């Protein structure tokens, strides 16, 4: 089967990833036009803040970071809800199947896949909050806006990301 992704992009017939990327570029510019640049990771601490304010209000109000991030009534929260809906709709309306395959050679059981996803989840949000943004806020929106921070963040992400993915796959466990 000829893979359309390997054919050279031309104005007449772009490969699917190029078409999707171009549409995403238009969406990202439209976002800056209508409300602001896209960003996801700040919603995680805002969600933690909303939960803690309900169950341990004293602790929540004493935490300077939670106070700084503020409430969940923010455009970014609605963006994240949109991601959930968009993923659901696109997969139901004939998108690629969501398979649960191993990501590295070491993930020999489903439990190990869940473990890696969980630890990965901790690290990506912790790292993103140190830097003040994630793939969407720093890399997509950041570099789109020509910000120097986005370029530095991307360099860091790909340095350890490539190293980690390669090491986990070749070594096996």
């Amino acid at each position, binding site marked *: 089967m000829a*893979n359309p992704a*390997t054919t050279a*992009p031309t104005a007449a017939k772009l490969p699917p990833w*190029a078409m999707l*990327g171009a*549409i995403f570029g238009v969406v990202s*510019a439209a976002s*800056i036009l*209508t409300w602001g*640049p896209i960003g*996801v*990771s700040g919603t*995680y601490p805002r*969600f933690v803040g909303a939960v803690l304010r309900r169950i341990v209000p004293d602790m929540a109000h004493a*935490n*300077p*970071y939670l106070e700084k991030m503020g409430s969940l009534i923010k*455009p970014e929260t*609605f*963006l994240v809800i949109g*991601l959930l*809906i*968009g*993923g*659901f709709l*696109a997969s139901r309306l004939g*998108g*690629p199947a*969501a398979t*649960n395959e191993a*990501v590295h050679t070491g993930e020999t059981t489903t439990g190990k*896949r869940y473990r*890696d996803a*969980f*630890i*990965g*989840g*901790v*690290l*990506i*949000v*912790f790292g993103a*909050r*140190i830097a003040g943004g*994630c*793939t969407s806020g720093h890399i997509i929106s*950041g*570099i*789109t806006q*020509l*910000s*120097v*921070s986005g370029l*530095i963040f991307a*360099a860091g992400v790909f*340095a*350890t*990301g*490539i190293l*980690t993915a390669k090491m986990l796959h070749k070594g096996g466990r």
Partner: protein
Amino acid sequence: MTLFYALLVGVAMGALIQRVRASSPAMIAQNLRLENLVVIKFMAMTIAVGMILAYLLSLITPMHFDIKPTYVVGVLVGGLVFGVGFGLGGYCPGTCVVGAGEGRKDALFALLGGVVGAFLFTLAFSSFIAPLNKLMDYGKITLADVLHLPAVGVALGLGAIFLGVVYLLPTEVKQR
């Protein structure tokens, strides 16, 4: 109205991420192992089109630009920590939400991990992170500021470079 626009942007973004398979952690791992560059080229395409369009639009209408501060040490350390988690789990904070919408079970573990990571971060912020992020803080600077050139020109130039790199890079890399 702002919240509604953000929701629409989120739905479109989620659908695009799902269609390009960026919400598949196996696909992300292939990209990070440099076996398949679909997601990396998709991102570069997004950035190129976005920057050219956003800065051209800024000539005719006010834009809601929001530049993040460049505190070099914190941004780099954060990126390095993020990369380890990205390589290990195959998810980023947005793609695990898309994956959860698709019905991926491991995405729920990544989401849960993200909430735990955010909680741990709020505990570490005052003592470790805030001092770290004061180091080499250059504020909200852009490439246009650094190069002392008009932003539109830099956006057109860098956008063209990104498009050129996307055109020249192979999509699938033959393994030895």
